[in-house]
């Protein structure tokens, strides 16, 4: 809802909680989360949609929140890294978070929230059968997240840069969870 020429009031359901926040119309969803709502788990790596550090789930799909104006997300449902554990029903850590720790799929940790949110989005895409650039038969798509191999996971996770080079651990962690239950739990 437009408040004046430069500001609006935006309603978002964030990590299961309804929030209303006044935003500068120029504000991105990322800056709204970080600066307006104190949810600094989503990271700003490039502000250009080139690194994936800001990835959150918006209405169940992964988005670069730096490319999304907050006003355009009005009414949306957002899951940030702070809410990922809650997806499993209020558990301590999501299975994917545990797998990241076990496979040391992180170093500095700055890309990690985006990697985890992106992986959840990627697994959901695979559950819907969506093909990737490396899927053999793109018209047939894929048979769920459990069917993904390392080649597919690498491709699907290539929108998230990890300069520390933890890709091997990231792929192993995603595969472990995808094989277990497609990341649904």
């Amino acid at each position, binding site marked *: 809802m437009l408040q004046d020429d*430069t500001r609006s009031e935006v309603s978002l359901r964030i990590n299961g909680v309804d929030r209303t926040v006044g935003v*500068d119309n*120029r*504000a991105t969803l990322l*800056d709204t989360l*970080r*600066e307006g709502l*104190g*949810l*600094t*788990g*989503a*990271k*700003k*790596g*490039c*502000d*250009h949609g*080139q*690194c994936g*550090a800001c990835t959150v789930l918006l209405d169940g799909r992964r988005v670069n929140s730096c490319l999304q104006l907050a006003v355009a997300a009005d009414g949306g449902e957002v899951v*940030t*890294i*702070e809410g*990922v*554990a809650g997806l499993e029903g209020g558990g301590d*850590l999501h299975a994917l*978070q545990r797998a*990241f*720790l*076990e496979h*040391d799929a*992180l*170093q*500095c*940790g*700055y*890309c*990690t*929230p985006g990697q*985890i949110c992106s992986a959840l989005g990627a697994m959901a895409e695979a559950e819907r059968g969506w093909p990737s650039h*490396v899927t053999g038969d793109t018209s047939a798509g894929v048979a769920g997240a459990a069917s993904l191999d390392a080649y597919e*996971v*690498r*491709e699907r*996770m*290539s*929108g*998230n*840069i*990890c*300069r*520390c*080079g*933890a*890709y*091997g*651990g*990231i*792929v192993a962690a995603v595969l472990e969870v995808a094989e277990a239950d497609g990341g649904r739990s």
Partner: protein
Amino acid sequence: MSTTTQRATGAPIVRVDGRAKVTGAAQYAYEYPLENMAYAWPVQSTIAKGRVESIDDSAALARPGVIAVLTPDNVARLQVDVELPLPFLAAAVPDLSLLQSREVAFRGQIVAAVIATSLEAAREGAGAVEVGYEEQAHDAVLRFDDDRAYVPGVVNDFSPGNVERGEADRAFAEAPVRIDATYSTPAEHAVPMEPHSATAAWDGDRLTIYNSDQGPFYSSLPISALFGLDPGQVEIVAEYVGGGFGSKAAPRPPTMLAALAARLVDRPVKVALNRPQSFSLTTYRTPTIQRLRLGAERDGRLAAIVHESVQQSSTLVEYTEQSVSSTRLLYAAPDVRTTARVRRLDVPTPGWLRAPGDAPGVYALESAVDELAVELGMDPIELRVRNEPDADPETGQPFSSRNLVGALREGAARFGWEGRDPAPASRREGNWLVGTGVAAAHYPALVFPSTAQARAEADGGFVVRVGAADIGTGARTVLTQVAADALDVPLERVRVDIGRASIGVAPFAGGSIGTASWSWAVEKACGALLDAVQEHGGVPPEGLEVQADTTEDVGALAEMSRGGYGAQFAEVRVDVDTGQIRVDRMLGVFATGRVLNPRTARSQIVGAMTMGLSMALMEIAEPDPEFGDFANHDLASYHVASNADVRDVDCVFLHEDDKNLNSIGGKGIGEIGIVGAAAAIANAVHHAIGLRVRDLPIRIEDVRPALQDLRVR
């Protein structure tokens, strides 16, 4: 004290800060919600050389939310002629002396900044500042034969610019087999995922900066000195740091911008560079042009090495990388000359990037050694083994330990080197030409003095404090392991606090010196604490605390040649039609002393090898001769390895028990993983297609001409 049977060091402990990182709870420099925060956005120079003639900030000041515009007219005056104890901190001063003069030394230099109540307002305000310049002709391109390049007195590793043993040029001329080749490496950027960020707040004459920083204590020295303060008046907090790779090992302009802006408006100010700004304001690996001359006997013994390198620096700072230093000790050649030259250009100041000097330098050396092996018809591993020295060839000092040969042999066995057909373009798999390559790696093992404090609580817990930074290395975890073992208690009873300048003297997370240096102080403090507890007959209710300082211990180290060694192997494939280059697998074998945590150590090495892959095939900051600075400024145009680029990257540590290093017996593993990686890939590309590409990165357009002939076979 009983001795625990299970020691924490050496075990693959999960990162103690991992949970904070996977839940988003870890707090980085831009994420401290201080009261009344303002945002600063820099205005950058659009010329490469000249002078700021005018700044019109009226339009910016008229924008809603803009509080002030920081300019040379209202900025706090800094003590720009300050002297600092460590040369690399002194070298940071010119770039930190923001707005103290109107001279422009490079394109992208901060010439003003807008401070506003919101990020959006600051950014819009910055776009409204009108800057007038008096522009001068500039030169922003490095050339090998530029006669304005000169040999500096010392380079970054404190060795002389020119070093010669024997008569290398004559010995080269007389050698029966000669390689004379010139290689180049481009400017490369660290691109840590967390851009350089700082949040600064003043309380009277006390300054606190939450800084994305590899060395909070060291950083407090130039910052305090520039403000004319005592080091104790400046607190730097660096709890979590989103990567650095050398670019955050000294404070950079955004840190000072936050402090100056906060001073001006008398409220907390934060600054985070965006990616384009980072390319000119946070240092970069200098481009190099290197000429390698290797003279050898027909049996492969090296008679002479001449390694000449020319690099660039800014007009502000003389920074010359040690790109020729490893050449002096990797092989037992009797006659060796290494010469580093630097050309001061109208460019941003270069600086450290993972294995400064050694990454580009060893790329060139190890490419030339491969060329020599081809020329001799020798196996490249055997050629290296034949030139293995007994003692440091440059200094004559004994090696504390050196197992390059072991790394090459172990790597050859694991990689499947035996039976390799050395003939180029000899292995074709469908549309792919496949090749393998090898290269040696070396990185010096240094240790700097550090302090640490250890505290016993009455409840049985321990708190150890050391001014370290964990930039993703696993330092916080490893130091906890070291402390637990030194105190002889389980990990759960120890908390290690790091990331604050106020903890005391401690070196940075850089130069692969961090863990070795901090661990020594931690062990010493913990040992002293146990003694104190015994003296007191237990821990008193108020607790017990001791401090340790390793200055004397480090000073008492015997003169020896200390360094990590390794062997890098790569297998690449090149599409015969498209020229696409893929790295199928990389294996690194490293002899780097004791491994304190195999889980985090492996991640560091594999990560550095991945950066080496990126260096070999992708990374190049293109110089912009017309406007200065670089032509590409973001992650869409400056490519780093993404997930799909990286397949099978593996590493192995050789057992090494070196009593002459430091208290923990480790050599530092932050950097060596990138050294030699690009050479192994370049050598594999040569093996795959028979073309020697001597300019990094190796791109499709470089290999395609060679594929014309191969396609018709």
